C-alpha cells in the first residue's frame, strides 16, 4: 500500500533522471581531466580573452557529446549572461550552403530582435553574417557556432566551413566553431584550405572506465534524502541497492552487457529497463531486475522462432539447408519436397508426411518469415512453384535445433549430415 506508492514514486523519479541527459552528465563533470572541464576551459577562454577557437568533439553515437556541450553552454550562459549567442546548425538539415546561411541569419535575427526577410539572397546573408561578426566583436560578444553532424558539412564545396573558419581568422570577429561528429577522421574530410584554417583541437569521447561507471550508477540510482519520499523508505531502498551493486554477480551481468557496446547511452537504456522491472509489491530493487533487463537485450528473435516450430517445419528447414549446401541457389517447394522424399527413402524415418501437410507447414514458415519469396514477380503462380530463400543463417538454425526441446535425432543428424559430408547414419542406423 504505502510501500507500493513509494515504490512507484521512486520508479518515476529514477526514470525521469535516466531520461535527462544533463543530470546524467553532471556526475562526470567533476574531475579536471574530463571532457567537460576541457571544453569549458576552451570556451571560457574564448569568451573572456576574445580569441577565436575551433574544435571538434569526436566519439561514437550516444557517448554524450551534445549533452556535455549543452551542459557547458548552459553554465557559461549563467556565468556570462548576454555575452554569448549560440547558433546551432545540423548537417542533416542544413547541408546546402544556401540553406545554412539562411538559417544562420535567421537565428542571428531572432537573437538580436531584427526582422528577418525570407527573400534575402545568399550574398545578402553572407554579408549580414560578416557584418554581425564584426559588430559582435566590437561589442565584446562571442558567437558560438555549433555544427552537429560535422562530417556532413564536409561534403561538396565546403563553402560554409570555409566562410566560418575564415571569418575566425580576422581580428574583428569573436567567435568559436564547435563541430560534433561520430567519425574519427572528420578533419581528414576537410579540404586542405579549410583544414589549414582549422585549429586541430579534438576532444575524444571515449567509453567510460569502470570507476566512472560505478560513480555514475551511484549518482543516478541512489535516492536523494530530501525528496518527497519518506526518509526511512529512501534509506532502505539505498541500502538494498548498494548491496545489489556490490554483488559480484551484478558486476558480471554489467560486464557482459557492456561487452558489446559501452557507450553511456547504452548503459542508460539498460538501467531504464531494470528500473521499470522493479517489483512494485516488494518495493525494493533486487538482482533479478538487472537479470531480466539483460535477457531482454540479449534476445535472439529468430532462434526463439525456431523454438516454436514443429518437427515437420524443422525438417523443411533442414532440407533447404541441404539444397543450399549442394550449391543449388534457387529452389522452390517442389525441389524441397524432392529432397524431403529422398531423405525418407534413404533412411525410413517415422516423420514421413503427405504433400498437403508439408505445404501447410511451408506456408506457416513463410508467414513466420523464416523463409520468404526471393522476388515479387510470380504473384500469380501458386506457392509450390515460386522460388524462395532462407532468412535464417546456418549458425542460428544450428543453435536453434540444438536447443530444441524434443528434436528427433534423425533431423539433427540430417542437418549435420549436409555439412560434414560423412554418412553418419550409415554407421548409426
Amino acid at each position, binding site marked *: 500500500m504505502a510501500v507500493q506508492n513509494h515504490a512507484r514514486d521512486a520508479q518515476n523519479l529514477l526514470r525521469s533522471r535516466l531520461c535527462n541527459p544533463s543530470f546524467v552528465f553532471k556526475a562526470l563533470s567533476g574531475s579536471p581531466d574530463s571532457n567537460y572541464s576541457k571544453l569549458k576551459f576552451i570556451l571560457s577562454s574564448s569568451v573572456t580573452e576574445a580569441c577565436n577557437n575551433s574544435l571538434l568533439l569526436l566519439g561514437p553515437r550516444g557517448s554524450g557529446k551534445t549533452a556535455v556541450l549543452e551542459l557547458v553552454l548552459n553554465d557559461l550562459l549563467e556565468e556570462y549572461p548576454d555575452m554569448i549567442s549560440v547558433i546551432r546548425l545540423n548537417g542533416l538539415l542544413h547541408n546546402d550552403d544556401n540553406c545554412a546561411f539562411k538559417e544562420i541569419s535567421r537565428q542571428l535575427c531572432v537573437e538580436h530582435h531584427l526582422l528577418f526577410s525570407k527573400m*534575402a539572397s545568399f550574398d545578402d546573408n553572407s554579408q549580414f553574417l560578416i557584418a554581425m561578426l564584426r559588430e559582435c566583436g566590437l561589442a565584446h560578444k562571442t558567437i558560438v557556432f555549433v555544427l552537429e553532424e560535422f562530417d556532413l558539412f564536409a561534403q561538396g564545396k565546403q563553402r560554409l566551413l570555409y566562410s566560418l573558419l575564415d571569418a575566425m581568422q580576422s581580428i574583428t570577429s569573436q567567435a568559436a566553431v564547435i563541430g560534433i561528429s561520430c567519425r574519427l577522421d572528420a578533419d581528414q574530410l576537410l579540404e586542405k584550405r579549410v583544414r589549414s584554417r582549422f585549429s586541430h583541437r579534438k576532444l575524444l569521447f571515449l567509453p567510460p572506465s569502470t570507476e566512472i561507471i560505478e560513480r555514475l550508477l551511484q549518482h543516478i540510482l541512489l535516492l536523494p534524502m530530501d525528496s518527497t519520499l519518506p526518509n526511512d523508505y529512501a534509506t532502505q531502498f539505498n541500502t538494498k541497492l548498494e548491496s545489489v551493486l556490490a554483488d559480484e554477480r551484478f558486476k558480471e551481468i554489467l560486464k557482459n552487457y557492456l561487452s558489446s557496446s559501452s557507450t553511456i547511452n547504452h548503459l542508460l537504456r539498460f538501467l531504464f529497463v531494470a528500473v521499470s522491472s522493479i517489483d512494485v509489491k516488494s518495493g525494493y530493487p533486487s538482482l533479478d531486475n538487472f537479470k531480466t533487463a539483460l535477457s531482454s537485450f540479449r534476445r535472439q528473435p529468430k532462434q526463439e522462432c525456431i523454438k516454436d516450430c514443429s518437427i515437420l517445419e524443422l525438417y523443411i528447414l533442414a532440407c533447404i539447408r541441404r539444397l543450399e549446401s549442394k550449391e543449388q541457389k534457387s529452389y522452390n517447394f517442389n525441389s524441397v519436397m524432392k529432397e524431403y522424399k529422398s531423405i525418407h527413402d534413404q533412411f525410413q524415418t517415422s516423420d514421413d508426411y503427405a504433400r498437403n501437410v508439408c505445404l501447410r507447414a511451408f506456408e506457416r514458415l513463410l508467414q513466420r518469415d523464416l523463409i520468404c519469396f526471393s522476388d515479387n514477380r510470380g504473384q500469380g503462380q501458386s506457392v509450390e512453384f515460386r522460388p524462395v530463400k532462407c532468412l535464417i*543463417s546456418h549458425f542460428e538454425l544450428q543453435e536453434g535445433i540444438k536447443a530444441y526441446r524434443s528434436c528427433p535425432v534423425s533431423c539433427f543428424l540430417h542437418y549435420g549430415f549436409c555439412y560434414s559430408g560423412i554418412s553418419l547414419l550409415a554407421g548409426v542406423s
Partner: protein
Amino acid sequence: MPSLAVSRSVEESLTPQKRRLRSNSTAAPETPISAPTKRKSPRRCLESSPSSHPTVSTRNDSIGPVSNSSKSLAEELSEDFSKKLNWNPSDASQVSAVKEALHVSTSPPTIVCREEEQRRVFDFCKACVEKEQSGSLYVCGCPGTGKSLSMEKVSNQLIKWARDGGFEPPEVLSINCTALTSSSQIFGKIVDNGYVKVKTSGTIAPLQHLQNVYSQKQQSSSSKMLLIIVDELDYLITKDRAVLHDLFMLTTLPFSRCILIGIANAIDLADRFLPKLQSLNCKPLVVTYRAYSKDQILRILQERLMVLPHVVFHPQALELCARKVAAASGDMRKALSVCRSAVEVLEAEVRDSTNNMDSDTQGNSVVKIDHMAAALSKAFRTPVIDTIQSLPQHQQIILCSAVKFFRGGKKDTIVGELNKSYVETCKSRMIPPVGISEFLSMCRVLNDQASNITHPLTQLSFPAFFLIKTSDQNFYSLLLQGLVKLGQSRGDDKLKRVTLTVDEADINFALQGVRFFRNCLQ
C-alpha cells in the same frame, strides 16, 4: 639606434590592431546594419571580404626598408633575449597577451621571409601603374604560406607609393570567390562596386559591359587604375573555363585599366586552364609561394614573440615546433596553433601544481620541450589507436576476426561470412558470441566511425598497405580512413559488403597489450 626605432614602431603599430570596444555597449549592439533585405546600393567589397580588417586604411604601415630589417633582426633577437624578464604563467593577462600575439588573426606589422615575393609583386604593380597599362599576375602556393596577407600589404604599399610618387593611387577591390553563388557573378561584383562607370544599367550583362568599356578610349583620361585581388581562384573554374578566360582576357583589351592578381593553391593553374592566353602572349606572371622551411618558421615565430616583454618559449621548444611543422606541411597556421596549445599545456600544468601547493613552480616559467612535444602529439595524432583500445570487447573481437579473415588476400566480404569468422573466434576463446542482430548493430557502430569516401590509395589490396606505410604522420594518416566500411544492400542485411579500412598494423599495435588478442591475431 636601429633596434630602438624598430621596436617603438612595432609597439605603436600594435595598438591600432587591438579591438576598440564600443564605449556604451555591454549587451546587444545597436544595429546600424540592416537585416538581409534586398539591397541595391553598392557596398565596398573591401569591407566585406573576410580576410581584410577595417583598420587597413587607418593604420600607418612601417613600410620602411624591408630588406634592411632582416639584418638588424638577428642582432635584435640576441639582444632582446638576454635582457627580457621572466614570464609568469599564472598571470592571466600575460597569458592572454601571449596567446593574442600567437593568434592567426593578429597580423604582424612587417611580414618576414616573404620579402622576395612581395618585391616581385610590388615591382610588377609599380610598372603597371607607371605606364598606366593593365597586367595580370598569378600567385600560387600551399595554404598557410602567407599569400593573402602579403597581397594586402602590397596593395597598401602600392597606394602609399603612388601617393608619394605623384601618381594616381589605384582603387583596390578584394574578392573572395567562395562568396559567389555562381562563377559569372564576379563580373557583376566588379561592375557593382562603382569603379567602372555604368552608363546604362541592367540591360547588358556585366561582362559585356566591362568588355565594352575597356575596348573604347575613355572620355575622361583621369580614370583610376583598378587593382583586383581575386582570392581562391579555383572556385571560378567551370567545365568550359569560360569565366576564368574572360576574366584574364579583360586585361588584354586595348584600353583596359585593371591589374588582376589571382590567388590559388594549384601551381599549374595558369598553364592548365589558360592556354589561350599564351597564344596571345599575355600569360600571367606566376609568383610561387613555397612552403615555409624550418628556419623561416622559426624566424616568423620569434618575430611575433618579440613584441612581448617576456621570455615565453625555450628556444629549443620553438625549434622543435618549427622542425616538425616544416617537415609536415610548412603551414604557418599550424605552427601558430601548436605554439598556442603548448602555452595552454603549460598553463594547465601550472594550475595543477598550484592546486597541489607545489613549491617548485619557479622552474616552470617558460614553455619547454616536453610541453611542446605534448602539443605536437595532440595536433598530429589520429585518434584511431585510442579508439581501438577503448572499444568494448566484442567490437574488438570483430576487428580481430576481420583482420584474420582478410589476411588471406581478400579485400571485402559479406556480413554473413564475417559473422561466421567472428563466431569461430569467440568459440575458440570460450566467449559466448552475440546474436546476428547485435552483431549487425556493432558493425554499424564501427561503420559510423569510419569514412564513406574511398581515398584512391585505399583501393589497393591489403598487403600493399605494408609496403606503402611510411613514418611520415601526414601520409600515414591519409591511409587511415576509419575502422570498417559497411556497404549498401537492398534486401537482406546479411548480404551487406563489409571492408576493413583501418590498417592491420594499427589494430595489432592497439591490441598487443591484451594477451587474448595477441593469441587471436597470431
